[in-house]
């Protein structure tokens, strides 16, 4: 029997424990640069096996409790999603799709846990104008630092997965932290620990890929020929990955992007536009400077004044 992965191999510590993630482990810091980290942490990943997910929302519940958020009590609008979308108080959301498989004629209830994918090449971080509001650790966690966040919403525009949400209360952006506070003391994220069917696992990215392979093999043996791992290369891979039974059609899972990448518009904005902008403004200023250097100020001569006086006299 294969050993089964278990996120929670031990319970959280209650004695004071040194956090194992520090500023020195940053590989990226929004709108600023960081010195190359002295050590490389083992990249971590959360693996979400959609084929094992029963849509129970334990992940949502555990997320609310661990992060002490307070999402609103909404209404039923004819679907199982509640809250109806990710919110600044709901970092993860089960999305439900009833899909008729045209091949088998069978109904499939595809349930995907939505939330931050912790991209290797994070669009949010790229877009962020506030120094240090978004950081990336060498283990792959992309985290928001609220005291540095200015609430501009650029991260929303940068994100290829539509994840960050701005709080109406403190006007800062929120999303899944991959429970960086738990990971820093050797615990897995709260959602992964809670997940009743181990549809969510957490470990090193390498281990998670190995686990995914065994799951894909199992799914293939059950007739899901296109089962596969969703670790999109367009964003350099992600530290939250999915095992999909239909990896050839990620969009059937509540519009999971087929080939996510940072939007070219965002790239243009954060790349070309900056250079162009500075160049243009610099040129304009330089032109003025040059002009004033070579061309003396345009002065009104006394002659001009006299002409004007003459004109006025003539007319009066």
């Amino acid at each position, binding site marked *: 029997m294969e*050993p089964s992965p278990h996120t929670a191999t031990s319970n959280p510590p*209650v004695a004071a424990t040194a956090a194992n993630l520090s500023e020195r*482990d940053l590989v990226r810091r929004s709108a600023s640069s960081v010195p190359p980290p002295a050590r490389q942490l083992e990249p971590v990943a959360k693996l979400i096996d959609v084929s094992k997910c029963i849509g129970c929302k334990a992940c949502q*519940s555990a997320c609310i409790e*661990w992060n002490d958020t307070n999402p609103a009590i909404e209404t039923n609008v004819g679907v199982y999603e509640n809250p109806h979308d990710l919110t600044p108080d709901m970092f993860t959301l089960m999305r439900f799709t009833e899909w008729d498989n045209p091949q088998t004629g069978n109904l499939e209830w595809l349930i995907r846990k939505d939330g931050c994918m912790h991209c290797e090449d994070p669009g949010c971080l790229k877009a962020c104008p506030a120094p240090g509001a978004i950081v990336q650790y060498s283990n792959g966690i992309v985290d928001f630092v609220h005291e540095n966040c200015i609430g501009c919403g650029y991260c929303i525009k940068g994100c290829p997965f539509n994840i960050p949400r701005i709080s109406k209360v403190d006007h800062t952006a929120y999303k899944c932290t991959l429970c960086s506070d738990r990971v820093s003391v050797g615990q897995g994220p709260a959602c992964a620990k*809670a997940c009743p069917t181990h549809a969510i696992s957490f*470990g090193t990215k390498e281990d998670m890929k190995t686990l995914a392979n065994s799951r894909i093999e199992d799914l293939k043996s059950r007739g899901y020929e296109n089962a596969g791992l969703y670790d999109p290369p367009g964003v350099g891979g992600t530290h939250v990955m999915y095992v999909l039974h239909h990896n050839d059609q990620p969009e059937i899972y509540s519009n999971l992007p087929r080939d996510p990448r940072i939007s070219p518009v965002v790239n243009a904005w954060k790349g070309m536009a900056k250079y162009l902008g500075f160049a243009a403004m610099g040129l304009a200023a330089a032109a003025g400077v040059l002009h004033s250097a070579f061309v003396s100020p345009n002065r009104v001569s006394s002659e001009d004044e006299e002409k004007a006086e003459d004109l006025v006299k003539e007319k009066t």
Partner: protein
Amino acid sequence: MNMELSRRGFLKAAGVGVAGSTLGAFGFPELEAAEAAAIRPFKLTNTMETRNTCPYCSVACGIIMYSKGDLRKGETAEIVHIEGDADHPTNRGTLCPKGAALKDFVKAETRLKTPMMRKPGSDKFERVSWEQALDRIARLMKDDRDANFIATNQAGVPVNRWTTVGFLAASATTNETAYLTYKVVRSTGIVAFDNQARV
């Protein structure tokens, strides 16, 4: 009471191959904790752990309640977090959406805090003391039992039955509460005695 854990035994038995190596990988070398600004201070630090089981369904998942204050030392204990007990063989730390939110059941706004009484025809509950409530209950019971207790049937056989008062027992109380309830209710002769198992 044995609240000691034998975690080692569990780890060995539970086959944690993948995860074992996983956790090893997080175990970064010792370093002075220069906590990143992004990272919340670990909120369970210096809390008291207590083992319990989930009160909802019959899977009876193991849970750990984290509190500020230690009940066993006679202190007031406020539960600040509840999560699954990784040592528990059934749930291994996992919890369903209900179990994962147990803290908010314990601290629900609609938890009852004082005995209340509603008078016949009244449209409100009024606060009463425990003494008043319990004395009233005992009096109501005694009066009804005295009036309606059936000691023998028509054939003269002792039947010692009290049918005009009923008792509906819970589904989430402990065995010990259930047993004490059994003793108290049975000793009165109440026969309309049932519990949630019926439905």
